[in-house]
């Protein structure tokens, strides 16, 4: 095989990987949402109810959403950022104000999830689902109580821990355990967090944000700090997986629906938001992705065992949402990258 045929071989392989781009029609709703978060049944139900076709694209981090939104122009009619990402998008005038006259079902939402700091007046965002980041323990393997970050990161659990592969999360846990604020991060607070994080990353076996439950289910680790929705699924599979909100306090996230300022089909976007807010539709989301449902009317339709899931509906615990930290994100990334590679 000569160099040129090898080149052609590689080029052919690359071309084969390029995905076909779906055709978009004018009346369609272009939805850009998290992967593993919007059930297909809900999308199909919306199309059936309204006749509007939904083009669904997914992302797996808020940063990916933001960068595609600022680069991509008016391709999306509806997006699904988390609280702190919505906050910065509002500040940067990337979101369109909502027309609440078209959202009659807003009344179904619980007041616990509206009027929060990222959008105090609820002028731009509607809560979709909420959750927390907490400790999950395989109680068959770990016999001692583990209820705080410090108790997770003990030498006896070396190589038995899974945590989210998310640098800001990890640094926030260290700050919480030091009693420092997680939303006003300074060079000084990062310096204090550094030795704590350095000790912690040495103990971790797996960093995984996409599916941290896998390592727990496979028996490769015995405890971890994961999304509450992942912990809820673990609990549904086996009651040995116990979820607790860390004693030092935990990160709560509220994922919202919002309409980009330059969306082409704002009418359909409003229709979709209003459809999602129907209790019987919202119930389907809970069934597929057992996060915390902010829809009070939908919660009345949930089964007793769904409401009893301690990961979906924790009884107690101090919860705090993230705020945008701007350029500090890259200092955090540098810190954790440094500590991970030092071991």
């Amino acid at each position: 095989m000569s160099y040129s045929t090898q080149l052609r071989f590689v080029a052919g392989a690359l071309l084969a990987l390029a995905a076909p781009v779906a055709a978009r029609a004018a009346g369609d709703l272009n939805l850009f949402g998290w992967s593993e978060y919007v059930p297909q049944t809900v999308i199909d139900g919306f199309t059936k109810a309204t006749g509007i076709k939904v083009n669904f694209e997914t992302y797996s981090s808020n940063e990916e959403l933001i960068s595609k939104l600022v680069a991509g122009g008016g391709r999306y009619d509806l997006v699904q950022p988390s609280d702190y990402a919505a906050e910065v998008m509002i500040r940067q005038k990337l979101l369109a104000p909502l027309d609440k006259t078209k959202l009659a079902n807003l009344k179904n939402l619980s007041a616990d999830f509206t009027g929060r700091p990222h959008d105090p007046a609820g002028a731009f965002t509607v809560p979709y689902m909420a959750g927390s980041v907490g400790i999950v323990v395989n109680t068959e393997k770990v016999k001692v109580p583990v209820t705080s970050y410090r108790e997770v990161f003990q030498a006896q659990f070396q190589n038995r821990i899974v945590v989210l592969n998310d640098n800001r999360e990890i640094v926030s846990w260290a700050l919480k355990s030091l009693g420092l604020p997680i939303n006003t991060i300074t060079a000084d607070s990062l310096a204090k967090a550094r030795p704590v994080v350095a000790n912690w990353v040495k103990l971790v076996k797996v960093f995984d944000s996409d599916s941290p439950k896998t390592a727990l289910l496979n028996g490769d680790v015995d405890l971890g700090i994961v999304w509450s929705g992942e912990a809820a699924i673990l609990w549904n599979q086996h009651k040995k997986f116990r979820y607790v909100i860390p004693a030092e306090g935990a990160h709560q996230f509220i994922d919202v629906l919002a309409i980009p300022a330059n969306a082409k089909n704002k009418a359909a976007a409003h229709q979709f938001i209003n459809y999602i807010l129907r209790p019987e539709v919202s119930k389907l989301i809970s069934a597929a992705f057992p996060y915390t449902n902010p829809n009070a009317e939908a919660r009345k339709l949930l089964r007793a065992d769904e409401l009893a899931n301690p990961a979906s509906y924790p009884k107690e615990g101090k919860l705090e949402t993230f705020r945008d930290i701007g350029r500090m994100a890259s200092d955090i990334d540098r810190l954790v990258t440094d500590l991970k590679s030092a071991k």
Partner: protein
Amino acid sequence: MLLWLLAFVVVPSAILFVYSFCERDELGRVVFSFTWENYQRVFDPIYLRIFVRSIGYAALTTAICIVAGFPVAYFIGRAGEAWRNRLLLLVMVPFWTSFLIRTYAWITILKQEGLLNAVLQSLPFGLGPWDLLYTPTAVVIGLVYAYLPFMILPIYGSVEKLDGALIEAAHDLGAGPLRVFPAVILPLTLPGIAAGTLLVFVPAIAMFAITDLMGGARVPLIGNVIQNQFLQARDWPFGAALGVVFMALFAATYWALLRFRAREDSIG
């Protein structure tokens, strides 16, 4: 061909180059004002250490691919006409399935309660369970698995062209198999090995999915660092600077390889 090069090589590289000298705003948007800052960060010891480690992983992967791939390629290349295409097909078959799915299959094999440990423990030697998944060993297994075909195919190309008469001549002149291999076969298949090395080493160094999935993302390689700049840290210019340095490094390696081969040719 020129248009193809322009669209897929020159323009993206130029964008990368320009971005690498830019700044960013709080949203991570690229701001077009000139700075050296990104390049200063690239040569921070943190990232240099990761560079060196990535090169180590890629070199080990390439070495194992050569050792494991050469006999396979040689066997296929020397097989009868009818068999050759079938055997080559076997090398290509894994490409019919998504790379990620094949990586997940390896997780099923290597995990604590997985296939390999189940087999080990059912044997009467008292072996296992081995702690394989989420270790550097798992990363190397994943890398070798992913890139082995890219080593086999070019070596096969060289072996196929290898003139059997030369080997027979060497035998006739009294050389045993131990002598024939380094004196005849290896030099004649060297172009294939060099091409395979390039095809394996370059992508292996920048791979990030395997380190995340099979290595548990514990030890970052340079591919992970670059990916993070785009997906987590909102720092495209720094990611671009890493990419540019990376490309320069490859260009230098490639150039050195070409020089080496040119010298070989002039001597040989």
